[in-house]
């Protein structure tokens, strides 16, 4: 178990990178706390697997260091780093029994027979695969195979970190949910640092205490699921997390505050100081958009259509060329049609400059 620090990390798969676009992983400083359950979330190709492979030493970073508990482990091999990794597709040793699969990492490290037996039984118990122990691993179902892959990581009780690289890709939807809760439960009982890589926000938000969102080779936000939802640090996070994602409207400064197409929009973070050449955007989640009541005035929009999901109603609207979503609670009596006006909750409406949340 260890605290993992990434210092000035950069990585490029091109031998001589020229510009920032050649880097799969841009400049990065980050610390993973000991015993945390992290999710690494981002779209395909954002560099999250690269980052994972750098931590596990399957990839050597072009620049920077990886530290485990303050010790530089950058030149060490995966087995010297003492980490475990579960891959997208189950990796099992076909010719061995389930028992021997689980015992393999321990045997390679010269553990005693008795100790191996103990650990394997314990982990098999946790994963609920005891009845399979004497079977050949080759003929199992994908979810059991993936459990064995996980088990091989878990049998070593001294691993620094266990990493999961989209481990539920090949699992049936109804088993996905079960395995995910199993994982969460395991984390609570073994208290090892776990990093879970995924592009699925539901998986990330349910598994992790802290979610690291990546885009185009850099970390855009680190936070609890609630923080990511309520206070996205980047328009990308706002858009990527939530369904539908955050509404993003181009804005300009008009006197004291930001405005959209001439209508002033009050925000929670009015800028103290601006350069003047930033690209400004207003971000507000559909959950915090409501229609103006009688006597109120808001932003004029054209309602295109409304769909009822059963739990809430989703309104598709347009303000100028900009699309806008609004989520209305089920109880509100009539859904507006045609021309209407909307009001954003000012406490949850934020201004972004060049994509990033403005600090005030």
């Amino acid at each position, binding site marked *: 178990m260890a605290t993992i620090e990434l210092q000035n990390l950069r990585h490029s798969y091109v031998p001589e990178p020229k510009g920032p676009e050649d880097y799969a992983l841009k400049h990065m400083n980050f610390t993973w706390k000991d015993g945390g359950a992290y999710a690494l979330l981002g779209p395909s190709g954002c560099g999250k697997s690269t980052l994972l492979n750098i931590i596990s030493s399957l990839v050597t970073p072009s620049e920077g260091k990886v530290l485990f508990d303050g010790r530089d482990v950058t030149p060490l091999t995966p087995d010297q780093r003492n980490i475990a990794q579960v891959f997208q597709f189950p990796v099992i040793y076909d010719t061995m029994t389930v028992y021997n699969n689980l015992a*393999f990492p321990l045997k390679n490290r010269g553990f005693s027979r008795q100790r191996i037996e103990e650990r394997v039984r314990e982990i098999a118990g946790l994963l609920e695969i005891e009845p399979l122990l004497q079977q050949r691993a080759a003929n199992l179902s994908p979810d059991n195979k993936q459990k064995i892959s996980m088990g091989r990581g878990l049998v070593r009780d001294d691993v620094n970190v266990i990493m999961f690289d989209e481990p539920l890709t090949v699992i049936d939807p109804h088993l996905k949910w079960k395995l995910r809760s199993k994982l969460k439960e395991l984390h609570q009982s073994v208290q090892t640092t776990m990093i879970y890589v995924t592009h699925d926000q539901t998986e990330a938000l349910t598994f992790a205490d802290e979610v690291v969102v990546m885009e185009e080779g850099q970390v855009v936000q680190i936070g609890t699921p609630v923080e990511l939802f309520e206070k996205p640090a980047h328009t990308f996070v706002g858009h990527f997390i939530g369904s539908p994602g955050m509404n993003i409207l181009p804005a300009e400064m008009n006197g004291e505050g930001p405005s959209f197409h001439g209508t002033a929009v009050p925000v929670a973070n009015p800028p103290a100081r601006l350069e003047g050449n930033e690209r400004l955007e207003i971000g507000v989640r559909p959950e915090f958009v409501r229609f103006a009541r009688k006597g109120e005035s808001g932003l004029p929009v054209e309602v295109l259509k409304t769909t009822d999901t059963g739990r809430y109603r989703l309104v598709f609207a347009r303000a100028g060329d900009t699309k806008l979503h609004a989520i209305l609670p089920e109880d509100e009596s009539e859904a507006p049609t045609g021309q209407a006006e909307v009001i954003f909750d000012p406490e949850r409406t934020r201004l972004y400059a060049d994509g990033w949340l403005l600090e005030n």
Partner: protein
Amino acid sequence: MAHKTENPRAWLFVAPVLLLVAFNAFIPLMAVINYSVQESFGNNLFFWHGIGWFEQIMNSERFQATLLRQGFFTFIILAIELPLGVAIALTMPKKGFWVPVCLVLMALPLLVPWNVVGAMWNIFALPDLGLLGATLNGFGWEYNMTSDPFDAWFTMILMDVWHWTSLVVLLSYAGLVSIPDAFYQAARIDGASRLSVFRFIELPKMKHVLTIAVLLRFMDSFKIYTEPFVLTGGGPGNSTTLLSIDLVKIGLGQFDLGPAAAMSLIYFLIVLTFSWIFYTLMTKNDPM
């Protein structure tokens, strides 16, 4: 993966293949069986001979010696070509510019007409004029393929290794490149040694292609005729007379059709039995 449906009309799809193969296999096989139970005194006169030829062949020292020679040859070339082919496949680059270059160069011997293989090695092994022969003689080994049985065997086996090892290499290589990187990475994380990686990942994943390799090499080494015939003509003496060479000597050379046919059938049965046993053993544990 395709799932199959019941369809009796599928026979129509198979009909062209059946017709062609039946024409080529069934009729000649019937002819061979027919010869094998008859005695001929020339002039197309045939008499029923029962299993006489089979008894005679099975008890003939000549056949036993040839069979032993054939078995020895097959055993040696399998023992050399399989490990060698796997070793070469393991050391080949997995990607990059050199992969197609290696593959093309290695596949080249497979596309040389069989008698050209024999002729090429004959020229190569000439004791005074061939590169191989002259070099070996230069090292003080009194090498002469046409007079020394050991030298003849040495050349014949070297030729077969030259000709067919690439088949094992290509098959093993195809098996190896189909292993996803995650398996190697997982093994590194599990702390597996190089030997363990080979034993528990590479070998099991190559099992299918190696089964095919063993089957093909076994069948083809039993069938081998042209290359050793052109190389040594079966000599010196009978020392390199393998099954097919002997068969052609008896059947086409001496026109002893009955014994030749009986011998063919025995020989065919041996190959079939071995292949079947091996195939069953290797595929026993597979989920189908």
